[in-house]
């Protein structure tokens, strides 16, 4: 099979709506090792209408230190790809201003079997939440706002 046409989706910080899950999965199907995969797991974080404290949210802003965040994202992906059975890991984090139900982040784990895929997806999600240089501002419907730390 000719895999010369494979243009992998790069993990990293993207502008809002710059890429979607279909684009990513379409690209994945041309991954040189896709034949070894039996499981594709995805996590998409979307904007919920309430904060953790239960305040009603109007919109969300994501700021990112792109160079640093991209380095951390690539490090997380590299680490997780080393787990046996993992075929590919992609983390896409968006920046910009978001409305309720807009997509903020995609994590995609492709693996031989589902067991290692579930573990790896969870690990990737917990890691990006803490380790990448992005910040989130919640803008509430009362007009106030807060950067979450």
């Amino acid at each position: 099979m000719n895999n010369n046409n494979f243009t992998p989706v790069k993990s990293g910080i993207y502008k809002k709506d710059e890429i979607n899950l279909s684009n990513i999965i379409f690209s994945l199907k041309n991954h040189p090792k896709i034949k070894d995969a039996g499981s594709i797991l995805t996590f998409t974080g979307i904007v919920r209408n309430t904060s953790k404290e239960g305040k009603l949210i109007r919109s969300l802003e994501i700021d990112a230190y792109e160079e640093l965040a991209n380095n951390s994202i690539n490090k997380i992906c590299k680490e997780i790809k080393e787990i046996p059975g993992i075929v590919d890991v992609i983390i896409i984090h968006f920046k910009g201003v978001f409305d309720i139900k807009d997509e903020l982040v995609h994590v995609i784990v492709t693996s031989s079997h589902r067991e290692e895929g579930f573990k790896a997806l969870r690990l990737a999600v917990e890691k990006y939440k803490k380790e990448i240089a992005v910040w989130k501002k919640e803008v509430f419907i009362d007009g106030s706002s807060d950067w979450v730390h």
Partner: protein
Amino acid sequence: MKVEILYFADFKDITGKDREFLELKENTVEGLTSKIFSKYNPLKNLIWDEKIKNLKGNISIVINDKLITDKNKGDVGLTDGDKVAFLLPFAGG
């Protein structure tokens, strides 16, 4: 000596800027903090712990895209042309 300072999240809201160049007299992180605190008073509350006379424990410093892990952050030296950022704890979306 001139350094570039990057502003993210709360910093960006307070300064109204993404980044700027600042002229420093003292070539340390403490020199830079004095400068920005005098220019943007609310930044002091955000990152300075008056009790320990130092940056708050949860503030990271990045110089030229590299995280600084020195214990006494104020003493870290700066060089002309350095790109510096103070970072509050991250929160992914």
